[in-house]
């Protein structure tokens, strides 16, 4: 009688796993689910904006003259507005996110840690449109009465003066949108930073304390240790800020005038323009295609941002493992 040994694992796998039809079906179904979502998002956008992008894409990205009724589709100010809002919102959100992460992971009393984490998550759970309405009714008017007149008087200063140069103070302007936005995108960055903050090896922290370091030394060391996650979180927050629609539309003032690097001016972003004009644009085929083309440009901008963020994060991570 011949003794048969167990087949090697790979043969086992071939025998049991791949023959199992439902499992293959499961993988195919899983792929189909997300790929169909991706296709449903991208195909109609590309299909319906391709001819516009090819024929008038140059105009869309070079001119700042937007008057759809006269057939002029210069959308550069919306691209710049999007970048402007994203830049400032990210700038304000970064210290917020790092502080909240350090606070929830390190400083909060042990029993309240979960509670504070939950509160931070709650910031992300409030709908964008509710932030917009709050900014419109309460926050914006408050700023316009108490803060913006003082900022406006800074317009005489040489370099930063242009940021505050405006003829009329309005509760709806870039700065209102930026401030509300920076609060809204904070939890996305904070969650990522906090997650890796909590995974820092305990030995390192104890080593710092053993060397006579203070709590602040520990925090400094930890933040240096997780640099790549901080970058990753900031990029995620920037991506959210770039695509945020409702709050921005309600707070930015929706002006299609050429872009100026100014914080107290009214303006528009790609998303706010689309939310604001799409419904009336449905009557004018060219107009609606121009808006669709702008959405495609927004997706490209977001992808570039994410790719850059991943690259920077990875190179920093490489430095960390070497050090």
């Amino acid at each position: 009688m011949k003794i048969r040994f167990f087949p090697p694992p790979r043969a086992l796998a071939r025998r049991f796993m791949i023959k199992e039809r439902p499992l293959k079906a499961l993988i195919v179904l899983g792929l189909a689910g997300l790929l169909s979502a991706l296709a449903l998002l991208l195909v109609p956008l590309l299909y319906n904006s391709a001819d516009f992008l090819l024929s008038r894409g140059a105009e869309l990205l070079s001119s700042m003259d937007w008057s759809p009724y006269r057939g002029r589709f210069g959308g550069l100010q919306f691209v710049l507005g999007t970048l402007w809002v994203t830049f400032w919102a990210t700038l304000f959100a970064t210290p917020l996110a790092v502080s909240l992460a350090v606070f929830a992971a390190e400083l909060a009393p042990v029993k309240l840690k979960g509670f504070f984490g939950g509160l931070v998550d709650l910031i992300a759970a409030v709908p964008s449109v509710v932030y917009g309405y709050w900014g419109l009714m309460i926050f914006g008017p408050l700023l316009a009465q108490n803060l913006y007149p003082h900022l406006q008087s800074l317009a005489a200063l040489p370099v930063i003066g242009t940021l505050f140069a405006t003829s009329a103070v309005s509760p709806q302007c870039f700065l209102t949108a930026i401030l509300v936005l920076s609060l809204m995108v904070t939890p996305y960055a904070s969650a990522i930073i906090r997650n890796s903050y909590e995974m820092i090896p305990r030995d390192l922290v104890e080593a710092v304390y053993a060397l006579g370091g203070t709590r602040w030394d520990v925090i400094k060391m930890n933040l240096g240790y997780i640099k790549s996650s901080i970058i990753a979180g900031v990029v995620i927050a920037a991506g959210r800020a770039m695509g945020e629609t409702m709050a921005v539309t309600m707070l930015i003032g929706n002006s299609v005038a050429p872009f100026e690097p100014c914080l107290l001016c009214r303006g528009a972003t790609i998303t706010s323009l689309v939310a604001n004009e799409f419904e009336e644009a449905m009557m004018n085929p060219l107009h609606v295609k121009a808006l669709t083309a702008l959405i495609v440009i927004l997706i490209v901008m977001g992808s570039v941002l994410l790719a850059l963020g991943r690259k920077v994060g990875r190179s920093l991570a490489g430095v960390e493992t070497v050090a």
Partner: protein
Amino acid sequence: MRRGVLWIGIIYAISLSALAALLWVLGSILVNGLPVVLKYGAELFLNDIPPPLFFFGEPQVGLAPAIVGTLMVTGIAFLIAFPLGFVSGVVIAEFGHTRWGRFLEDLASTLVEVPTITAGVAVYWTLVVPMKGFSALAGGLALSLVMIPYVALYTAESYRKVPKVIKEGGLALGLKYTTVLFKVIRGLVLPGVVSGALMAVAKGAGEAAPLLFTAGWSDRLSLDPFSPTATLSVLIYKFGFSSQDLWLELSWAASFILVFMIILPLIVISRLLVKRHVV
């Protein structure tokens, strides 16, 4: 003074002011929205949305079309998003080591980042233009595009938490892999999956951008998925810009209903489920 006390103080100040801002937002919804809800009481949940100007007698004040619309659109979105997202999530968790699994995970975490208004414009072209009109169905499809990656990521997270030993035990008994995934560890993953699904619904219920040009608008109550419908989030946006006090009040009431009666309960239930799961 010890080094860094100042910096730690700054961290405290920034964190607490961010949380104060959150409480300010929630508080102003409560202060402005709750009185309106109490003033109109059950009427608010039964009547149609009032027209802009009233020439004939007392206006009937209500939000019923928007409340029903939000529930219907979110429900349709959930019916589309859950099966697709769930299966993708299982594949992400179970085959994360393979090429396709990693690809799916990257895809899901990229789709989460896509601006939600994109879904609105895309579905406008695929459904609204061919059907020649807004519909709750189009709104649901747009919202499902937003929800699918969330369902997938939450499902994957809950499947990953199951100890490998349990799965291996099932496989060692000669059970099929799918039997192990969907029957043996069902009790272990169910709370996590349900909680993730509730979080996805809470995310979807508050979205307005995908619904603006898909679900459209309607003053009247309708249960027909092929006709346009109002939703709470779109109502907040539309009425928020008006100059009529009644409409502004209704926007506050809609914010209150959306945040305190739909989203917060969903989040609380979802948290409780996971907590019980852990213990």
